[in-house]
């Protein structure tokens, strides 16, 4: 990872900047984030304060974890569209089971669909070679259907948000959101896994050249199954965190996060074709998207115009970023 400091004859300034950016893809992303915050401060002087920052981070975290699922699956050339459903399911089951069950039992019940859907995704993609887009879309629809059936059985008992989750999701201690207690170890684990473990290496290698990994003795289905189960587990945990933040269980709780999670990973520099990217960029990508949403909200535009603008900015940012980073 070290970048050798070879001083070559004077290179044009623009080109030097470009090379610097290409070596450290995080830098342009952070610059973009800062620019967005500055614009926000100019439009609404005084909005950027401690509370606003804590709030932004709180909302960025569930997005960032789901975007972690996308980052890991995209590294292998896949995608996981079932994360929204999985998060919703675990949140909904947690909120309804906690009424009558011990918290640990409720937790296990809530994570069950996550494991199941992850396993099915993994086997479908890894063994039967279904395209990940279709596979995860399919399991996502099935999961939503099951959840609707489940809802009828618990309609009488009602739902409640466990205090611990509410504390974790919305609480702030000494100016820091409590959710960071969950997120920082989780993010560190993902970054470490991708960079320093055999499994992480295999994700990159499989996405880059599956044939080569096969010839090196890698069994594709093992990697893919482990990957989609991990992705689903992360999504399930996100669901629990998110219900603590939103505090209103519904059948489409986390669904609106799915496509932004893909966008965050792409903005963060992960290639949708596999083999390239990393989680740190994704985290900044999630922050950028969250700030962007706030920005568009305070512009007081009609919802339609806001969405159009959102889409345009995401496209523009991604294209510009790839242009900066890929020095060819």
């Amino acid at each position, binding site marked *: 990872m070290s970048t050798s400091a070879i001083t070559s004859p004077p290179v044009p300034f623009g080109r030097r900047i470009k090379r610097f950016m290409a070596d450290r893809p995080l830098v342009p992303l952070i610059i973009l984030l800062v620019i967005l915050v500055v614009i926000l401060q100019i439009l609404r002087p005084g909005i950027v304060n401690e509370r606003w920052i804590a709030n932004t981070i709180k909302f960025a975290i569930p997005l960032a974890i789901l975007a972690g699922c996308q980052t890991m699956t995209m590294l292998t050339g896949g995608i996981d569209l079932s994360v929204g459903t999985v998060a919703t399911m675990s949140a909904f089951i947690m909120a309804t089971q906690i009424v009558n069950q011990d918290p640990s039992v409720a937790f296990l019940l809530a994570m069950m669909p996550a494991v199941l859907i992850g396993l099915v995704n993994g086997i479908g993609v890894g063994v039967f070679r279904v395209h990940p887009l279709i596979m995860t879309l399919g399991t996502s629809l099935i999961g939503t259907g099951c959840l609707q059936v489940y809802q009828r059985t618990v309609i009488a008992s009602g739902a409640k948000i466990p205090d611990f989750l509410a504390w974790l999701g919305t609480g702030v201690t000494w100016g820091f959101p409590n959710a960071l207690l969950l997120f920082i170890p989780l993010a560190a684990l993902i970054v470490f896994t991708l960079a*320093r473990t055999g499994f992480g290496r295999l994700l990159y*290698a499989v996405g880059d050249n599956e044939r*080569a990994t096969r010839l090196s003795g890698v069994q594709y289905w093992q990697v893919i199954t482990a990957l989609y189960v991990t992705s689903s587990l992360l999504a399930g945990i996100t669901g629990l965190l998110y219900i603590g933040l939103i505090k209103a269980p519904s059948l489409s709780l986390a669904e609106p996060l799915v496509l932004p999670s893909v966008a965050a990973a792409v903005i963060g520099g992960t290639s949708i074709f596999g*083999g390239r990217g990393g989680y740190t960029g994704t985290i900044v990508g999630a922050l950028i998207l969250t700030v962007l949403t706030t920005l568009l909200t305070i512009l007081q535009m009609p919802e339609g115009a806001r969405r159009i603008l959102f889409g345009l900015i995401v496209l523009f940012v991604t294209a510009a970023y790839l242009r900066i980073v890929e020095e060819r």
Partner: protein
Amino acid sequence: MTTNPLPQSPLLDASGVAKNYGAVAALRNASLSVLPGEVHALMGANGAGKSTLVKILTGAISANAGRILIRGEARDIRSPAAARRAGLLPVYQEPSLIPDLDVLSNLRLTGTPVEPFRAWVRELGIADLDLRDTARDIPLAVLRVLDLARALAVEPDVLLLDEMTAALPANLAEKVLEVVRRQGDSGRAVIFISHRFVEISALCDRATVLRDGETVGVVDIVPGVEEKIVELMLGTRIVKTHVAARGAAEKAAPAPARPRIAVHNLRVGTKLNDVSFDLRDGEVAGVVALEGQGQDELFAALAGSIRPSGGTIEVDGSPVKFSHPIDAIRAGIAYVPGDRSEALAMQRSVRENIALPFSAALRNWGPIPMRRERAKVLSAIERLQIDTRAQGEVQRLSGGNQQKVTIARWIAADARTILCFDPTRGIDVGTKQEIYKLLRELAGHGKSVLFYTSELEEVQRVCDRVIVIFGGRLVDIFPVEEADEPALMRAAYGLPRGAKADIGILADPQSPSSGTAP
């Protein structure tokens, strides 16, 4: 075969044809002249330029220089359609019907008249063809015959057949040859590309021989001419090369009682038949074959990439069945494919590429012992002298360095047996030398190497023994002392050692397969 004594003007006359790809000349100065009523063989070793010439004649690519006359008229063949209009029609090795359409739709697509097509299909020995069958459901051998019938139906002046009889069962092949011969009788011409002397001697009137992109000779097919053709294909290299005596350090270790790998009657589909040989510890065994004679399947089967359909593979005396490359790797057998893009994760670093096999097994998915890995990788890099200036991404390395990385991976993993498939193709001379040296060193350390090469001169530099395969069968196993280039070339064309005999004996289909046991 009609031999017309009158001097005729050629149907097709190409001369001075050249084609460059960048700085590489695929074709320098090729000429080909085909008379009416003639079946003309086009021959040449791997990389001599046969396929380039064929592509130019059929309009698939355009030449940089040269002149093509058809019936004495200069024609500019810019596209396959233009070639067709000029009366030149190819039948390629790969079936060309669109798989998802039925035969009739395929005919309509190319404007082929249906009735003549039907007649030719019957003529070629397929009685029960339903034109409504989808091409996908038709067996490969029949598809090839349909391709031929489709070409015959439009009555081309010059028919170009590329390895027409490969993958055909004997009865169909016979019919095909008969029909091709009759084409000649009716005043048309056929250009016949084949590696099989038996067919060429039975069918062709003359042969044009290419070497290094140039036409080096046109010969009449008479008994005994195959010696002459082999000479032409080899050119000046015919002088028997001196087998360098290997130094004591390089000498193979004394052969142990039990072979490292023993292959018995290995069969893979229709591509590989009944191949048996041993690979011992401490030796480099060469494999020599023309393109597509079953060597790809042999290596893939040994590497666990495909499952053989018959025969046995024994490793250290016990039979094995590989269902995934990991099984072969566990048995200490590593495969270095000929195509580097098949072996490397191009966007990843040299280090990650070399260390890839370390992480493969489930139990190694945890944290990587970075220091240990670094040491192993560095020693492999040093051993192969990989230029690591651009090590961040393998795709930025030169071809030679990329090839070294594919080998370094298995040096680092300490594989006992390495299957090297044409590792020196398309890399610079210096790197080639280093790879030869490395393979010898490996053998010196008691490892075993199976080494397929498309360059015959490499055999004597590297190998202890040579296994020659032709048409999916073992032709012969040579000790390296006898494996000079002419002998290898002859064997690669299915002519067994010592058989300077005339074509009559060679026509016996049994003789090429009777290889001598090691």
